[in-house]
């Protein structure tokens, strides 16, 4: 039970929280216009983050997302089949995740990037990774190709929007060739 003594403290707290809420709301309003692919995250099977790309997620929320996703993966992805798709949601945000080789891949999106669009994204990502690594990568292989994977990801997700979906095209782009060759 809340004692008398705590009350004013408590009221203050609520006020502060309120301010935070308001602030976040206004920030969210600003963000609503862009229907974003909120994050792409790669971890290894131990939950160490290999690559992460956040778009339009405030820094203080990233930590929550990381732990949320890592927990999700630890709960569900152990022993899952390669590229079997898993789904989760939080409020109006959708999460699709999968495992490829030793690497767990998560994508988060909302609005336009709903479950199926994210499935499309993750399909592009996994097929590109397989293309880059030559097979479903072990963690070692993934790290060996780290640079190229980063570049590929850069071509697939460009400022929070899905860009190239074709793995051949991605391969051309990371070698700085134009999308359609001459």
């Amino acid at each position: 039970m809340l004692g008398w003594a705590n009350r004013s403290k408590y009221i203050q707290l609520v006020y502060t929280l309120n301010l935070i809420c308001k602030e976040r709301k206004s920030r969210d309003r600003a963000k609503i216009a862009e229907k974003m692919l909120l994050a792409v995250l790669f971890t290894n099977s131990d939950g160490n983050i290999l690559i992460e790309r956040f778009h339009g997620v405030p820094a203080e929320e990233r930590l929550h997302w990381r732990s949320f996703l890592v927990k999700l993966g630890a709960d569900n992805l152990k022993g899952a089949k390669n590229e079997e798709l898993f789904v989760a949601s939080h409020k109006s945000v959708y999460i699709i995740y999968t495992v490829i080789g030793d690497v767990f891949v998560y994508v988060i999106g909302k609005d336009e990037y709903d479950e199926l669009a994210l499935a499309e994204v993750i399909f592009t990502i996994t097929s590109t990774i397989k293309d880059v690594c030559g097979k479903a990568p072990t963690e070692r292989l993934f790290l060996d190709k780290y640079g190229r994977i980063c570049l590929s990801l850069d071509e697939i997700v460009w400022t929070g929007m899905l860009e190239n979906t074709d793995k051949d095209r991605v391969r051309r782009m990371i070698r700085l060739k134009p999308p359609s060759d001459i």
Partner: protein
Amino acid sequence: MASGQESGSTTLMDLITADPSSVPPNVTPGTAASTLGKPPVADRKTKKSTLMQIQSDTISAAKALNPIKTNAMPQRRKKTPVSYAQLARSIHELAATSDQKNSQKQLVHQVFPKLAVYNSVDPSLAPSLLMLHQQCEDRSVLRYVYYYLARILSDNSSQGLSGGGGIPTPNWDALADIDAGGGVTRADVVPRISEQLVLEASNSDPEVHARRLAALKALTFVSPSNSEILTKLYEIVFGILEKVAETKQKRKKGIFGRQGGDRESIIQSNLQYASISALRRLPLDPGNPAFLHRAIQGVSFSDPIAVRHSLAIISDLAARDPYSVAMSLGKLASPGGALQDVLHLHDVLARVSLARLCHTLSRARALDERPDIKAQFMALLYQLLLDPSDRVCFEAVFCVLGKFDNTERTEERAAGWFRLTREVLKLPEAPSVSSKENNTQSKDAPSKPKSDKPATRSKRPQPLIKLVMRRLESSFRSFSRPVLHVAARVVMEIGKSRAAAYALGANDMDEGAYLYSYADSVDATDVDRNDSSLSDGARNKALTAVASGRDSIASLLASLMEAVRTTVACECHYVRGMVIKALIWMQNPHESFEELEAIIACELSDLSWPSALLNDILLTMHARFKATPDMAVTLLEIARIFATKAPGKIDADVLQLLWKTCLVGAGPSGKHTALEAVTIVLDLPPPQPGTISGITSVDHVSASDPKSALALQRLVQAAVWFLGENANYAASEYAWESATPPGTALMMLDADKMVAAASSRNPTLAGALTRLQRCAFIGSWEVRIIAVQALTTIGIRSGEPFRLQIYEFLHALALGGNQSRFSEFQSSNGEDQGASGTGLGSLISPMLRILDELYLAQDELIKDIRTHDNAKQEWTDDELKRLYETHEKLLDYVSLFCFVPRAKYLPMGPISAKLIDVYRTRHNISESSGLNDPAVATGISDLVYQLKETPKKEQLYSIDPDLANAWAANLEDDFWSSNAPAMSRVNEFLAGAGTDAPDVEDENMVSRTSGTYEDMWAKTLLQSYEAEEDDVRSSGSSSPESTGSVETSISSHFGGMNYPSLFSSRPQQPQESRFGPATGSRSTYEGISSPVREEGPPSYSATMQRYGSFENPLARSGSQSFSSRDDESTSQKPRFGKALYDFTAGGDDELDLAAGEEVEIEDEVDGWFYVKKKRPGRDGKLAGLVPVLYVNV
């Protein structure tokens, strides 16, 4: 290759800097990066023999022990993790020699990949990167260069790119400031980078157009706040589009993607792609016709991604300015136009954007006078329903349903439901790309391109709903979890639209039909009227007439729901959660919900449900209730299942919110049942067999599982608090509205009989009392405290028999009667034995004192009246004043415990009403502020002769009892049920939309001097709920836990009295409306003396008449000033008080008190005094807040 598993404990950099290409890494865990400056990868030789490997194995152990040794062995240096400083240095070095093959190779294979690991890139690298950018020819190197330049450009502190995981980098700008030597901040380099990139992007030489594309792309990473670069970017993009967009006619139809062609057109298409992509990243410029024009040109580009982007831009623009977009699209939308080609475009997101565009345009009011255009887009949208991709199809379904973003109104959703159920699909032709199933359906669809109105029914069209249902059912057969999830979501949206349609009813539907160009509103009303069973008959008839279909909507839905239910078997919780939400939404108020209940109960016994998801479902029920208030009881039942099955995972606040909404919204008939449903939580079924009844369940849970017991206890606390706060509302029983004067009832009846009679009169309240009483002596300490508080609240607010009943009960409890009387219950709870005797007793005593004071004052008043009566005395003004001050004092006391409407509450019973009114009227004391009103306190109001009349008050108590009775019974019922705007206001407030919702509350509460904290509470509560809801609906980007803190903060404070209760705002409003017209007729108490005479004691009327003779209060004001009153001088400022107990400050603005200390009371704020002390106490402060109860005034 190594498995990599063993390296899990090392950092990413350790992993990646171990030998990347040839040898399995001998992991060197714990070895920090050697900071001895050496170029780490200076002359690396990859082609070493296997001999080397053996050697490396032998030396690796030593190396792990002593990293310095690695210096002596240059050929093995690559094994050491590389520090950022080393990478940076090597980039600088290699950039200088970038013309050599060797250094290029190193850059591409060694340095750049490792650099990618870091969070951000040091701006001081920029010069080297720019040098590479200018001099290097190697494509791979350049690609990396663009990558890093983009990362420097993007403002990674707020959003945009943030680099690869795990290795945080310092804030470079801050570092640069400290390091005066080579410090380069981002501000220094960004202009240079952008300048160089802009230059390159404007280079129209076809030889380097690949670099041009990359430069353009890198430029889009610039933060949107940098308007200078953005302007340049706009110029470049429009410049490119100027050149390349015009030749679109050359495009050969049906050829997409990479095709052979002449070099020029390929370059052109590449440039088209790059510029449109860049345009998509630029901020939207709605007013700019050039922007729109270029975007629309983009629809005809040959690159599918370019088409996707341009459609996305157009659909965004269309949301703002549908008219000009539609006009500009012009014939592109017509059959054979470019938009038709998009249907066959191999790009899902492009078609999704197309669906949204079509939806926006076909709904736009601005296009009302151009039905032909609307029809075109409608036809396109319906074609998208047949899309082979589920994503596109479901997007189209959402559009049909009226779910566009999260802001759509109920009418739109309702219209969506009718559209879905009544629309008949006619397709121009069977699309070439459609799934097998849909092919069979579209075969019999006649080709009538231009008609979208169901009025023009042709021979064999396809009912829309049938199509959607089949599609959904096939999706539910899928094994893919995302597909299941999305299908369940579609069903949920269908349910939402359906609920909206029901909620609106026929009248609104007519409007909807007009809005959305529906021809046969007759049909609509038909369907709507018998809403109970989805009107199989009428529906069926309509459909058979149209589509020769044998299926009614009900049967279609039934088979769909069957598919949905089987999906509960999915192993993924999120899919199941979505399915449950869908089921809740599809649940109709009139159907039996046993099946749903069974499903949920069965689901919840699974222990692995994430609590966020469960609370999400609770919020869904909340939303469901908002859509259909009839479902209150059903939903409360389901909520009860949640509370009992998974107490640990349910947020008490979410639950409470649901209760409250249901109670408020359930209407006059439903609220009794609603309260019942809430109270059932108190009788939670025991988790273990063997307990006698629900009473001891709390203790038994604690025996089995402490954690869930705690949670359950919290829920019970919440329920108890809720019950206390709202029982009076649900029972429509208020002391200030009770018609029978308590005094007379007391005298007439024996208390027990009276209680029995009352409980038969008001079973709701009696039931609540029984439950609370049981809670007050059973259960854990916290629950008991809250139960006692709840009882006091009810006692203060209720009319007489109940108050007496509570008083008796509390009395017994305080005396420790529970020990003896209820000892059989005590056996279960060890904790109680010690606490019940003393602790609870001392807690009860102030509450008992309040009630004591009330009764004492009542007795006193009756005695006084009798005395006056017998002696035929008149009430002197002094006597009246004393009476009034007692009244005020009691009001103050009472307000400490719970909210009562100050203007109406009569602590001394209804008989005091007239006397108090006499005094008030004479001294112009406004009811709401009482003696605390400064004008009253200083006596100014006495000088103002009859300036303002306060007639409402006496109207209230002078009307004849029957009328009062009727009014009291109907008061809030009227307000909530017949008053539709009020209901929708609640809905809005709960939806987070209504910041205007608390307005009513505010204007009533501001008038109370002691309302400040109350107000604050109301506001904070509303706002935080608003934020919460907002999160739910739109701002889903918030992270999983971040809102949790807010929710829990909202309160576990139901113990406090300051929670804004349901009725805190409510009763005043109807009073005004009810009595407003009457005020003119009777203005003063002379006018009402006759009814008073009838009902009051005879002596009383005599005094009343005497008051009638007071002509001029002004004359008396001098004599009656502040004569001889000592202890009741609450009216004067400053007031002085004495601390009763020690008080330790709990917050910054609070003040320590020692018992016996004298304080000066400056102000009172809802249960707190702002006091000043004569000398500073332990905390050294002179002034601050202390609880009212600690000070004896």
